[in-house]
């Protein structure tokens, strides 16, 4: 098992090391999330009832956009300096190497969002239990965003205007995650059960974690041809 996942751990560690050296990327995604979510009360008004109502959607859309920000740079630096080509040619499983990179993207752009979300939730006057559900839903949902996003990043690798194109391709595919994720928090606020939402979110996570790396490597091989 350990040797099987070795390539995954390799790229995961490498990308995390790179992220620690260039701290700006982590900070940019997080700061973007905080700012976008904070703009909403300024645009809508400070009414606590209204804010509590829009909080799940606002926080989730913020998370969605923050993930999107880092996706453009998921493969492009490695593509530019030829590392990606080396990975594709290496005897190790390309899919696992790529899966490691995607997990690294999640640690850099998804995990901070999960950790900061409760603070923003407090700003939106969410009760403590809903904050917990918010964190759980983001914890299950942000990997889905990274993994589906990776397919889009691979498809648009090296194209002109790839950033905008990436959002156009990926955002429609994010809709189920958004619905189940924000829905879980809403259901908790409304006092109805959250299990349904969370288990569907979990199912999406499992599906995307297993199948997206495969589609991503296929797309990367095409881009590298």
């Amino acid at each position, binding site marked *: 098992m350990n040797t099987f996942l070795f390539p995954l751990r390799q790229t995961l560690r490498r990308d995390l090391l790179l992220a620690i050296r260039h701290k700006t990327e982590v900070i940019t995604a997080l700061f973007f999330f905080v700012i976008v979510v904070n703009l909403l009360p300024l645009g809508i008004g400070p009414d606590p009832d209204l804010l509590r109502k829009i909080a799940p959607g606002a926080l989730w859309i913020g998370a969605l956009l923050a993930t999107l920000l880092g996706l453009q740079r998921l493969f492009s630096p490695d593509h530019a300096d030829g590392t990606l080509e080396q990975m594709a040619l290496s005897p190790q499983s390309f899919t696992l190497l790529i899966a490691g990179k995607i997990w690294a993207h999640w640690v850099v752009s998804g995990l901070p969002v999960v950790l900061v979300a409760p603070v923003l939730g407090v700003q939106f006057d969410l009760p403590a239990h809903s904050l917990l559900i918010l964190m759980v839903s983001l914890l299950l949902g942000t990997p889905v965003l990274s993994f589906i996003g990776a397919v889009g990043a691979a498809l648009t690798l090296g194209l002109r205007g790839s950033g905008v194109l990436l959002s156009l391709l990926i955002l*429609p595919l994010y*809709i189920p995650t958004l619905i189940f994720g924000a829905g879980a928090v*809403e259901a908790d606020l409304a006092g109805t059960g959250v299990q349904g939402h969370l288990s569907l979110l979990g199912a999406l996570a499992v599906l995307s974690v297993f199948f997206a790396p495969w*589609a991503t490597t296929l797309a990367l091989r095409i881009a590298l041809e």
Partner: protein
Amino acid sequence: MSVSLINWFKFSSPASFYPLAGRLVPWFATIFFLLLCVGLWIALMMAPTDAQQGEGYRIIFVHVPASWMSMFIYCVMAFWSAIGLAFNTRLSGMMTSALAPTGALFAFLSLWTGSLWGKPMWGAWWVWDARLTSQLILFFLYLGFIALQAAIDDPRRADKAGAILALVGVINVPIIYFSVQWWNTLHQGASVSMTKAPSMAHIMLAGMLIMALAFWAYAITMALMRVRCIILERELASEWVKRNAME
């Protein structure tokens, strides 16, 4: 000649498919035209007035076929994409890109007619009904596909990237549809449904099916015409184009 004797793979090369498509176009155009005349006659002349929705329900004779076709075309695109990735045939990629604009057009028409139906029935041009919302997302998927192919200069890469996107999309479409349905039932239930007319008379159903078949023939005609353009554009330099395409 029995079907199995025809060498189907012969037609998987663009050079031999080009004239075949050219011969098929007038046939499908004729089928389209005939079915359209019958369908419109039923839809506008024969079908009785609906008890609840008055004459406004006649919109479903174009709305439902357009919606069906937009979904069907996406599935056909995914089918060609799978063939293209599995057998590495050039023609399947061309077919996929030939179908996309027509599919997008049907998705748009479905939204447009849905909105025109919604205004008198729901009192609003847009309602966040599960069907309409899913249709909107399908429209976005089409636009994404077209934009991706437009951004890639190398046609072979465009075909393959488009194929992956179409397959990822087709896996997601049911999930999206289910999630939107789920979201919709949690927030509000739509009172009037477009296709669940309480007493769908046989003549109405027949009209809808014939219109759907007419739209299907239209889609095939357009796809064949477009695939001919694509073949010519891509093979401009090759000998057979110079010899044959000038007729």
